Every structure is written in structure tokens, then in C-alpha cells.
């Protein structure tokens, strides 16, 4: 690594932007990473001659934090969740990104106005919007299909096990939605002790029927095996199984939880210029739209929406599968990183205590 570093620095000194440059991008692996390789990395390498090394991590924030702590940063661009981006930015681990540096939309709208709310932070730029959605196995409900978050908690009418992620962030909101809290008020309610209690009380009603998952691939497998009849899952994974593999799954967009994924650049990144080039390139209107060909995550720019077309199979319209489609947004809960920065530890303890008690 050190040799590479010295080499690249030396070469950069001789001829800036020469083909020997490279950039190390740490992302999440799987179908998501593949979509980034297709939509960002290949055209980027072609256009700039900068080689992109893709590195997979379970959660890129973990190696990022470790590398910063160790004072030996090897990645240039990291794809992280919003809460991590904010936290790492506050801790001074990230390079600030001026929105004016980012390319404007094709119609001339400035980047600052083109990105969806919350997509531009001091040190981070969002690339996609992804949803955690309810999905069910259609073979389990042949005559009467569930349609809402309320049905998810109704094991009488819709029998079978439920899949939920083993963390408070993506479970408590769903309980509140199912208990009748409007999406916009979820965090207000969750900010009070009574609200938290209300969420746990609702979860109690299905606790015995829940199979808890941790990794994104698990709920899809559980649903396919028939181990659960209904589960929440990342919408891209479900889409992949539904359209890509033809599994008999259906998505309920009611009670969707929306997250952003963000690109960040650590301070002391080995190739800062190339990293910034990559970040600008990858978050322009066309690249974000292109990525939607490969995975059903919504582009973080408004101007990309109209460019989103067909899935790579050439016959599936992507728009209805996007978390950002207007009809899918009706009861969507947008992630609130500030709330979770304050309450993640506390609610995790509460959640684990609740899990462990019988």
C-alpha cells in the first residue's frame, strides 16, 4: 500500500491526472455494489483514466472509523448511512464538501436545489434513496392479501411468522405507524417515554411470531423458504428477488422507512483529488439515473427521476419500484439522523432489554 501511495504521489507530481491514478471506493457489496460498478465506475474509468478499486464491507462506516482511529486511511470514498455521515463529520473525520462544486442539473438547476431534502450535508452527498418495506410471500395469502402496516401486525387475519430487523431503528417506527401514528409525527411520538412505550406495546402483540434478521440477505431468504409469511426488507433486495429471480413476492409500500446512502471522503484520504472527481462524477444526474437500471433504489437528485427508464431486462418499468415514486411516499417515514444520534444507544438498550425479556 505504501509503495502504491508513494508511486501514485510521485506520478501525480509528474503529470497530474495521469492514467496511473486510482481511487479506492468502499461500499456495501452485493447487488448494490454491482450497480455502482456498472453505473459509476466503468464510465468514470473510461472518461478520466482513473482506476477504481471497489472494496466491500458489511458497513463501510466501520472500517472508515477504524482507519481514522488508526491514522492509516486507505480508502478514498466511503458509501455510508446518513447517521454515520453526520457523526463522522461532527467528529472531524471527513472532508467538507461544498455543494457548489457539484455539477448542476442538465436544465441548469444548481445542485443545492436539485438534491432531495437532507441529501446534502456538510461532509456528504447522497447518491440513492432506499426504503425498508414490508414484503410478503404471495403463496401464503392466496385469497386475502395484506395491504398495510396494520396487516403486518394482524397475525389473526394474516397468519404466519413475521421477519423484522434486530434493531430499534427499523422496528419502532413500524409499530407506531401500525398503531395509527401518522408518518410525519413518528419522531415526535418516539421522542417521548409514552411514545416509546406505545411502540413496544405494539411490538409485544407479535413478539412471539417474529423471526429477527440482521443481514440484508436474510429476510429475502426467510421469505423464500416460507419460514416467514411477511417480513420487512430492503426494497432493492426484494426487487432483485421478485424481478430478477421471479420469486412470488409482493411489496407493501405503506409504512416504508426511507434512508439515504451518502458518499463521504475521509480527511487524509490517499488520493483526495481523484476521490473528489469520483464523487462529483458519480452524483451527477445521468449516473444516478443510470444506477436505477441495475437496482431499485431511487436517485437522490430530482432531475434524475425523469431519466429513469427500464430495468436492465428491458421490460420492467422501474418507476413503481422506486422508494421515491410519489405513490410510494404517502406514508413513508424519512430517517432522522439527529434523532438517532441522540437516542440510538438508549433505545438499543431498551430494545435489547425488551428482546431478552420473555
Amino acid at each position, binding site marked *: 500500500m505504501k509503495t502504491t501511495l508513494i508511486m501514485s504521489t510521485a506520478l501525480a507530481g509528474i503529470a497530474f491526472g495521469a492514467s496511473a491514478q486510482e481511487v479506492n471506493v468502499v461500499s456495501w457489496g452485493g447487488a448494490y455494489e454491482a450497480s455502482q460498478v456498472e453505473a459509476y465506475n466503468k464510465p468514470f474509468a473510461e472518461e478520466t483514466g482513473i482506476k477504481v478499486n471497489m472494496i466491500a464491507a458489511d458497513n463501510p462506516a466501520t472500517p472508515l472509523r477504524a482507519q481514522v482511529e488508526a491514522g492509516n486511511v486507505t480508502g478514498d470514498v466511503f458509501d455510508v448511512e446518513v447517521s454515520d455521515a453526520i457523526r463522522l463529520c461532527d467528529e472531524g473525520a471527513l472532508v467538507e464538501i461544498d455543494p457548489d462544486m457539484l455539477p448542476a442539473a442538465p436544465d441548469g438547476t444548481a445542485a443545492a436545489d436539485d438534491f432531495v431534502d437532507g441529501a446534502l450535508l456538510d461532509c456528504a452527498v447522497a447518491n440513492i434513496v432506499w426504503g425498508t418495506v414490508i414484503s410478503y410471500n404471495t403463496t401464503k395469502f392466496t385469497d386475502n392479501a395484506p395491504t398495510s402496516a396494520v396487516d403486518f401486525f394482524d397475525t389473526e387475519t394474516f397468519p404466519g411468522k413475521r421477519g423484522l430487523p434486530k434493531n430499534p431503528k427499523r422496528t419502532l417506527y413500524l409499530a407506531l405507524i401500525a398503531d395509527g401514528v401518522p408518518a410525519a409525527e413518528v419522531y415526535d411520538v418516539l421522542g417521548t417515554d409514552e411514545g416509546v412505550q406505545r411502540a413496544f406495546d405494539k411490538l409485544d402483540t407479535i413478539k412471539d411470531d417474529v423471526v429477527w434478521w440482521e443481514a440484508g440477505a436474510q429476510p429475502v431468504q426467510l421469505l423464500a423458504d416460507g*419460514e416467514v409469511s411477511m417480513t420487512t426488507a430492503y426494497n432493492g433486495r426484494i426487487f432483485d428477488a421478485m424481478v430478477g429471480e421471479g420469486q412470488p413476492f409482493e411489496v407493501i409500500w405503506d409504512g416504508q422507512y426511507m434512508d439515504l446512502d451518502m458518499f463521504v471522503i475521509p480527511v487524509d484520504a490517499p488520493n483526495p483529488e481523484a476521490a473528489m472527481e469520483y464523487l462529483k462524477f458519480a452524483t451527477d444526474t445521468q449516473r444516478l439515473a443510470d444506477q436505477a437500471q441495475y437496482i431499485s433504489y431511487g436517485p437522490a437528485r430530482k432531475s434524475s427521476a425523469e431519466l429513469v427508464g427500464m430495468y436492465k431486462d428491458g421490460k420492467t418499468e422501474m418507476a413503481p419500484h422506486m422508494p421515491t415514486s410519489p405513490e410510494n411516499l404517502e406514508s413513508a417515514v424519512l430517517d432522522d439522523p439527529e434523532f438517532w444520534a441522540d437516542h440510538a444507544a438508549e433505545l438499543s438498550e431498551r430494545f435489547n432489554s425488551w428482546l*431478552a425479556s420473555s
Partner: protein
Amino acid sequence: MANTALDPHAAITTTASGVATQPLTTADGKPLVRALARSQSRARRKAFLLVLPLLAFIVITFVVPIGQMLQRSFHNDGFSANMPNISAWFAQTERGTQPDDAAWQALAADLQASAEARNIGVVGTRVNYDMPGTRSLFTSTGRKVRKGIEPPYRETLLEIDEEWADPQLWATMREVSTPYTANFYLASVDRTRDADGNIQQVDENQRVYLMLFWRTFWLSGLITALTFVLGFPIAHLLATLPMRKSNLLMILVLLPFWTSLLVRTTSWMVLLQQQGVINDILVWLGVIGGGQRLQMIYNQAGTIIAMTHILLPFMILPLYSVMRTINPSYVRAARSLGATSWTAFRRIYFPQTLPGLGAGAMLVFILAVGYYITPALVGGSSGQLISNMIAQHMTSTLNWSMAAALAALLLGAVLVLYWLYDRLVGVDNLKLG
């Protein structure tokens, strides 16, 4: 010996003791002791140089990181290092002192400087550990005062957020204004400090660690017992079968070692889940009805089954190596002396396997206490262990101090058990292979 008088060595000893008052010297007159030390020191130096790489390796990769990790459990300067003025004010004043103008000024100056230096998040995180819900107070205030803050400081800060007046917040800031703290250990045993600094239990619905510690040790004990029950007959079979057959069996025993965790986990799922092979067979046999399928994975049972499977070889191998050295004639002797086969086993064979059993139980128990991947994958909610909490604090909440405190307690508990084992059985009786 009867022939001591004739023993030539004895003769020399007698002569030597006769002149023992003078120090012995070598042929050229140097003191013998020093010559001996010199001749041995070279060998010793060489031996030391040979183990030096290993020593360095262990120190660098094991002792130093663990030491650093443990240090985090009682040392966290996230607040004190970045908020020097207010920390100094806390140091000069008594607990319970109302914040005066100097305090507000110090706080404002620190907030501004910290926000400018981009480490206000670290400060907020540190306070948030002890008082949840305060991180955003620091970061949002920081964003507003980054460019500068004007007096009157108290009013300005209260205008930004009224929470700055909260006495609990000031008590917490006082608490975290020194880098050394026992609060992470308190939190690890479900204890916290109230505004007056008294230690009390946390709310009932926040209590989780003590219960998980208890569950970890109880499940580890159970898994150790299960590996013993399952592993003992196999080890005995391995030790008594002819070499060729026992080699084949040994491969079967070791197979789990050579299989990737993912493959193993997947096969457990295929076997154990409610729509899985075992349930299918039971339903097909009519043992259970289609609606009563057993829950054998994603719960405590899953953790027990999977960990017993993984850890079985660690019980079998030491047992096997000890059993192989037990001569079959002991049991025969016992039988010929009138013992039934059960008595012979209980009184003669079993006691001789104890060193292997001790080693195996120790290995399995200590490994089980630290396991977290398996419980995370197949444990559901009721099969989680304390190490899953440590992992969560390491990777998810990023509260490494808390992770370190939990790990230190776990390490301490294991050391206590080891000490107990040494007192009761004696570590010399361990036989690892």
C-alpha cells in the same frame, strides 16, 4: 545405596566439601561461578533472540491492542480534551455548585472552539453516553456558535436551547470532565448515577447487561455439559477403535472445523427451521402435527444446537488424547477385582479422563463465553449473548468504551472461573493434547 563407600563420585564430593570454605576456581584461576554464568549467558541470549520475534509479535498484536482497549473502558477524554476551560472550572468547584458567569463563559468558549475544530461531535457523543438525548444539543449548538459567540453567554446559549440550563446536564458534564470514569463499568452492570452522583439501578426496561451476563454463563455451562455428554462416547470410541477406523471417525469429528461458517449456518437453517428437514420428517412421521412445527432456530435452542456443534471438537480432542493414554488393563483389572462395568467406568476410567475433561470443558466454556457470530445468526432474540452486545457497541453504536468495559468484565469473570478451577482441580491437571 549400600555401596556409597565404593562410589567414586561420593569420594569426590567428600574431598570437595573439605575445601568448601574457598571459592572454587577454574583451571586458570577465575571464579567458577562467574565462568559458569558467562558460559551459560551466551546460550541464554541466543534462546532469547530466538523467541524475540514471537515476543514482539505477541506484544504488538495482542498485549498492546488489548491494553489500549481496556484503557478505553475507564479512560475517555472525548469531553475533557476538547472542552478544557469548562473542565478546568469543574475541577476548581465543588459538586453541586451552580454555574456562574465564569462557567458560562468557559462553556461558550469551549463550544465555539470545539465546533471550529470539528470535534464537537466527539464531545456530544461522550456526554450522550452518560445522558442520552444530548448529542444533538452539542452538535446543533456548535453549528450556531462556530463563527463566534457574543456575551451574555448564558442568555445566548439558553436562547439557542433551553436545555443548557438543565441541572442534570451540568451534573453529567461534571461527571465526564475528567477523562477517568467508572461509569462505563456501572452501565455494564445496569447501574447509573443520578444528578447527585449516587449509584442506582437503571430503569427496569433498560436493564439488559446483567441478564445477558447471566445468560451467557448459564448457556456456556449448558453447552459445555452438552459437548461433554455428546463428546465423551465419541472420544472413547476414537481412542479404542483400530487406527484406520478411528482416523476416519476423526475426520468426521474435524469436518465442522473445515467447513466455512456460512455453509454451516445455511445447513442449520435448512435442517432446523420450521419449514426445514427435521420438522418435515417429524410431520411426515406424524410425531407432530403440521401446525405444531418446532421452533429450533432463531431462538435459544438454535444457539445451543449450533454452538454445541461448533465447539464439540474442542471437547473431543483433549478427551481423546487423554483416553488414548489410558491402558485398557486398568478397566480389566477393576473388572477382575469384582467391579461391574459401570463401577469400573465410574471409579477407574472416568477419574483418569479428568485432565482431558478439565481441559476440554475449559476450552469450550471460554470459547462459548466469547462467541458472537453464531448467536447473531441463529440465536434470534432469546439466544443473544453478552458478546453480541460487545459487537454491537463496537460496530453499531460505536461506543467503544462501553464495549471495552463489557469485555473487561467478561475477561474478569473468566479469570475468576479459571482461578476457581485452579483452586478446585488444579491447572497442572489440564491436558490439552
